[in-house]
């Protein structure tokens, strides 16, 4: 179904040849110009820049916009305003300010990101699946009427991943043949686990199968907030420190491959003497076991899960870090610090089951009371409405994108859970790109430089927009040219 070969698409009338790919995420914007020629992915990615999609007000009541937030050192009590809610641009007032600063204002925009002449630029703008029509209309109108791009295509973000070079990921046997030949992927199931939600999008030849798109209303934001809640109960009150907790999450959280085992490992009741003096007193008969080799082994394995996390103090230490758990030295240091009363003593806490029970909610939302099923069950739900062979093919081509894919063990866990749900004859392959955050952008860039015909088919020029209006444009973004376009 691939439309437009390279040869025929080289010189498409209508859309400007410069293409700006804008993956407008809830947490960060991934933006950059698509390379005009087909270049290796690493080179293309060098043009992709990540801009925080937020307005931040710090404790000293200064407001930072987008990329300016990188200079903030004191993140404590910072407040955020995000134009994107649930993946969709709701507040264009804030979004416009961030875009203006990042792309359109020559003084503040990075050189690579500066869009000097929107009229001579095609914009590929991503939206999550099932964006509400009212918000789509807002986006179309403001993009075309405020900035006036010469060409514009609003695409469903996950679908761009079908244009990535995925065959090496999924196939064991490498075929060095012309890899662009069989792009987009015929069947690809994209799990996009982002900031505000996780979506499952089956793609057929790069187009979404709408009936099977499903969404889990949990994303990275929820993980951070949950971790914040848990740390505030168990360690320090960090409920005002979004960024710090987010850093903790990124540093130490992982997805367990055996939840029960890891939970046993981290339970205080299993830790003998070191678990706290009070507890041991109640064990009674357990004291006998304390020194036998098995409990020693237990103890050692426990250490693999627990880590010490040193919180930033905002002066000497700007970002927290983790180090292997060391009960003895930690206790000694704490005592020393308490005795000497040093102001610069490090603030540390020991994280145990927080590390894996937080990401666990993506796989078992019922743990925090949600009635939604976990990711693997949602994939099954999604596939249930598709023809059987498509199901089988989708399962052997599952790509995970989005920030949560960076959590160690995430991809492996999805694969393991899907494996238990699918008959053995069917293959289950779950993979991620090297950088799952920019993989959607990269797919967009590859689409722009390799398949301009497809962009043309699903895009509109400025003239077409002005002539036919936003309703027509919206139809075209969904259905393609359909013979109506030039």
């Amino acid at each position: 179904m691939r439309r437009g070969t390279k040869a025929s698409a080289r010189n498409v009338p209508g859309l400007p040849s410069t293409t700006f790919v804008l993956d407008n995420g809830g947490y960060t914007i991934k933006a950059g110009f698509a390379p005009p020629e087909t270049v290796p992915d690493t080179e293309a990615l060098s043009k992709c820049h990540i801009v925080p999609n937020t307005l931040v007000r710090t404790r000293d009541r200064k407001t930072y916009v987008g990329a300016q937030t990188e200079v903030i050192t004191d993140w404590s009590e910072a407040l955020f305003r995000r134009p994107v809610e649930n993946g969709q641009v709701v507040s264009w007032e804030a979004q416009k300010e961030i875009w203006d600063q990042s792309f359109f204002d020559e003084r503040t925009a990075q050189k690579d990101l500066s869009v000097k002449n929107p009229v001579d630029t095609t914009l590929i703008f991503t939206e999550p699946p099932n964006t509400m029509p009212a918000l789509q209309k807002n986006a179309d109108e403001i993009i075309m009427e405020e900035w006036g791009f010469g060409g514009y295509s609003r695409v469903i973000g996950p679908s761009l991943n079908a244009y990535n070079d995925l065959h090496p990921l999924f196939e064991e046997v490498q075929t060095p043949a012309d890899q662009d030949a069989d792009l987009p992927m015929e069947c690809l199931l994209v799990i996009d686990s982002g900031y505000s939600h996780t979506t499952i999008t089956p793609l057929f030849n790069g187009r979404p199968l709408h009936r099977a798109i499903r969404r889990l209303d949990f994303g990275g934001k929820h993980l951070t907030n949950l971790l914040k809640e848990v740390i505030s109960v168990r360690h320090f009150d960090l409920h005002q420190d979004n960024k710090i907790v987010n850093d903790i999450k990124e540093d130490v959280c992982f997805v367990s491959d055996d939840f029960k085992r890891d939970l046993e490992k981290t339970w205080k009741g299993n830790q003998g003497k070191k678990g706290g003096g009070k507890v041991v007193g109640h064990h009674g008969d357990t004291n006998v076991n304390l020194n036998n080799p098995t409990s020693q082994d237990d103890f050692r394995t426990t250490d693999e899960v627990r880590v010490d996390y040193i919180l930033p103090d905002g002066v000497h230490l700007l970002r927290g870090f983790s180090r292997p758990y060391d009960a003895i030295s930690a206790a000694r240091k704490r005592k020393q610090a308490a005795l000497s009363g040093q102001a610069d003593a490090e603030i540390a806490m020991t994280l145990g089951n927080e590390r894996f029970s937080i990401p666990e909610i993506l796989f078992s939302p019922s743990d925090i009371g949600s009635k939604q099923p976990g990711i693997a069950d949602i994939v099954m739900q999604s596939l249930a409405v598709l023809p059987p062979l498509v199901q089988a093919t989708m399962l052997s081509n599952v790509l995970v994108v989005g920030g949560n894919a960076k959590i160690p063990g995430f991809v492996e866990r999805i694969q393991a859970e899907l494996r238990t749900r699918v008959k053995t004859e069917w293959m289950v392959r779950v993979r991620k790109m090297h950088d799952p955050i920019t993989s959607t952008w990269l797919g967009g860039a590859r689409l722009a430089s390799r398949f301009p015909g497809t962009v043309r088919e699903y895009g509109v020029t400025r003239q077409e927009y002005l002539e036919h209006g936003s309703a027509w444009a919206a139809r075209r973004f969904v259905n393609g040219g359909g013979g109506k376009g030039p």
Partner: protein
Amino acid sequence: MPLIEELPVTSTHNRPSHGWTYVPDTGAPNPIPSAPLLLGSRKRGRDGTTTHASTAQSQAAAHKLSAKQEKAIQQRLNDLGKENYRDVHIPVPKRDGVAAGKGREREKEKDRKPSQNVRRILAYSRTFQHYLADEEAGVNVYGSAGIVSGVVGGVSNTGAASGGHAQGQQQQKPADSKRVRGGAMVDKEQEKMTTAAGRRNGSLKQKQTVSTPTMTTTSTNTTTRTTKTRKGGAIESDTSVKTESRAVMGDTDVDMADAPDIPLVSVSAETGTSAQQTQIQQSPLPSTSTDPNQLSQSQSQSNQIPEDSVVSYDPALDRDPLLRTRDLPKMPSERVMQALLAEPPLSYTAARAKPLGGAVDGMSVSTRAGGVSGGGGSSSLLRPQRWFCTICGYWGKVRCKNGCGERVCGLLECWRGHEGVCSLGAY
């Protein structure tokens, strides 16, 4: 697929490590059937689960949360989605340099008045919830500019979707009734056969009877437009099943009496005697031969795709045990995929993943037949609720005695920690 798992109730740990007796968790399925009888009934009674006789019932009751608790959970989930720890509006900062540092033409460009749409959009102070309410109310944002009905409003979307579904159900029904008839015939045949012939002969007869519904559907499909997809499905099973002629008897996956023999149907059909068989079957049961064209249709046995266009793809067909295939099924035709691609997007709310176990039990049988058992279907996929200690995050083995609904792990430390903050403990 039945859920098999190790139950967390009995700790794998060999050391009992608590200073008091457990209150058994009536919520988790109990591995020992006699265990409920040993319970001190007072505590259970206090939780509102009085009956010991039916564990299933008491389990359900124990897991039923009060409205208050439901609300608290919902509130917590909403809180998890929050951006900031307190509600605050951060105004967009004024940029000082707008007038100062600009080039002349740039400035001119800036002076150009933004269009009316832009001004309106920028001035919106609507939240996500407002938009969501609009969508659910089915507001057509493009007004009379008229867009394909499916692409816009949520209501029209869901309407179309549910309509399609209803259609699917209707399509399924005749198939079911046919299947039932087929099953009845099997019984009759078997009664006849068992006296003289051996088991093998009986199964041969069986497969002939089973062939009837498949054939009839194929033939009726050519006349009625709505069931067109069914033909595709039938053909699909026919062709792909060729490889499957072996090892059909050992199939324990399907409850239907006639289902295990399906793969043989196509085998016999391939031999070319299928037309004959259909004929034979039709004489005792004339009700199936609704279509005069049937004979010729079934003789033709076309494996190629019908020329007419498919209206919509019906997922219910995948679950039909008669059409079930066990190896990789055939690729659906190009038309089916085009029809799937042409479907309008779901609305925001419709795309939200539904809770498991929402469907009726009858679904669970049929979902097994398809490639993937539908996640929305069987309640057997439901995992038991897991409870955690609110203090340390370990398994929540002990319920708070104040009935606040929270649990602790059984360590004194955690219990005290909870007691200190328990909302109901301070009376």
